């Protein structure tokens, strides 16, 4: 993992003092990690993390964690977890290979979003630098995995990946190459939720079905809305 430049070196001067709970939080922000990811990097459980956060000015009682935080803050070679690439980096590797593919997806630029399980429109947002912090953690990992796949397998790896996305789409009843393809309309697999009506606006052109009876709400008696009728 590539450490970032210190935003304020004075904040993290550990000379003459032990590592405290607040230093763990600083490390997390500095490496731009989620709490769960930082727990993995430090080998902590989540309750232990919050135990340290509740006492920001007290010494961290585990000397191993103290030494690890100090090492991570001072030595780049102490970092074990690789840095997850930005969307633009992964997309650049994809674009380099897609031209050589046997059967590239329709509209390859936006298809990149589908190929990582997101919407087509996400790609344009990522490439302009917007919404980077909203990329799901699984997709960030997928970027890294794809970078390795492209580096080791080249076009063959890309084609296998596209074929797999087509297969996952077909097994869910989708046509991956259709322009309106959207994973968000994935039919629910949970049978408990399968009988429920679809949430959100119906797709354009869909025939509206008459609504069933409304369920009774708590706190309001059924009847005409508006003013309450005067007491008899």
């Amino acid at each position, binding site marked *: 993992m590539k450490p970032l430049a210190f935003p304020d070196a004075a904040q993290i001067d550990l000379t003459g003092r032990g590592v405290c709970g607040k230093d763990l939080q600083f490390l997390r922000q500095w490496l731009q990690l989620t709490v769960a990811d930082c727990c993995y990097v430090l080998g902590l459980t989540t309750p232990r993390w919050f135990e340290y956060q509740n006492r920001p000015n007290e010494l961290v*009682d585990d000397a191993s964690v103290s*030494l690890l935080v100090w090492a991570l803050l001072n030595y780049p070679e102490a970092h074990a977890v690789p840095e997850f690439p930005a969307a633009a980096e992964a997309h650049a590797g994809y674009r380099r290979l897609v031209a050589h593919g046997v059967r590239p997806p329709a509209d390859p630029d936006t298809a990149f979003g589908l190929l990582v399980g997101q919407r087509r429109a996400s790609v344009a947002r990522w490439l302009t630098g917007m919404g980077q912090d909203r990329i799901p953690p699984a997709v960030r990992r997928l970027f890294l995995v794809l970078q390795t796949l492209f580096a080791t397998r080249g076009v063959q790896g890309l084609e296998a990946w596209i074929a797999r996305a087509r297969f996952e789409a077909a097994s869910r009843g989708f046509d991956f190459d259709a322009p309106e393809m959207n994973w968000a309309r994935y039919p629910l697999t949970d049978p408990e939720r399968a009988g429920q009506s679809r949430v959100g606006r119906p797709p354009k052109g869909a025939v509206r079905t008459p609504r069933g009876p409304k369920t009774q709400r708590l706190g309001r008696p059924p009847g005409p809305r508006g003013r309450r009728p005067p007491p008899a």
Partner: protein
Amino acid sequence: MLYPDIEIVQTDLQRRPVCGKDLLFLQHWLDLSIAEACFLFGMPFSKWQACTEGERADRPLDDIGVSLLAWTLIAFPETHFLPRYPTPAEVYPLYRAVAEKTPRTLATAYAPTPLGKTAYGLLLGREITSPTRWLSETDPRPADPQVARLAFALRGILQLRGVGGLEAWFDRAGEEARARGLTLNACMTSWSRMDDRKQSRGRPRGRPAGSGKKRRRPADAAGERP
């Protein structure tokens, strides 16, 4: 639960979408804890449970990103990105080789102690007896997760910086010891004997003050009348 070989799973995945059981297979195959598996897939523990428990393990995953990630990791094992943390026993020979060249010791006025197995436990934030357990030839004990990560960091620093790195590490350990009211020397056996902070957090340990017989000081005893 018995898990198949990866070749069988690879073949199986050519006919069906990725399901929760494939996440369990990867966890088992890579020998990960649940927390580590959650980090691998970038999912919270609640989502892990929702994907892998009971009958849901046989259903396709809702999250296509996780599906494709799991498939890539199974189909192309070279794409694994989790580090393998070394055991303290694996780092120990490197540590000994570097430690022989440094003038730093745990020496006191009475006991000149070079940096050896005893110091290794303290420098990894544990007791002086821990290396004996880690380095046991017959029954080596696994290190805690944070110690495994620390061993990775120590190995990287020793490989890149040699004696200078070990001395900086030693000085930092001394700083941490001072902050805890300890001195990093041959008399130090453990990091756990910190100041009164631990005792003030919860129930005080040991016999409460004043509950037992008071030990008489000789002076008091001498001055006391029967």
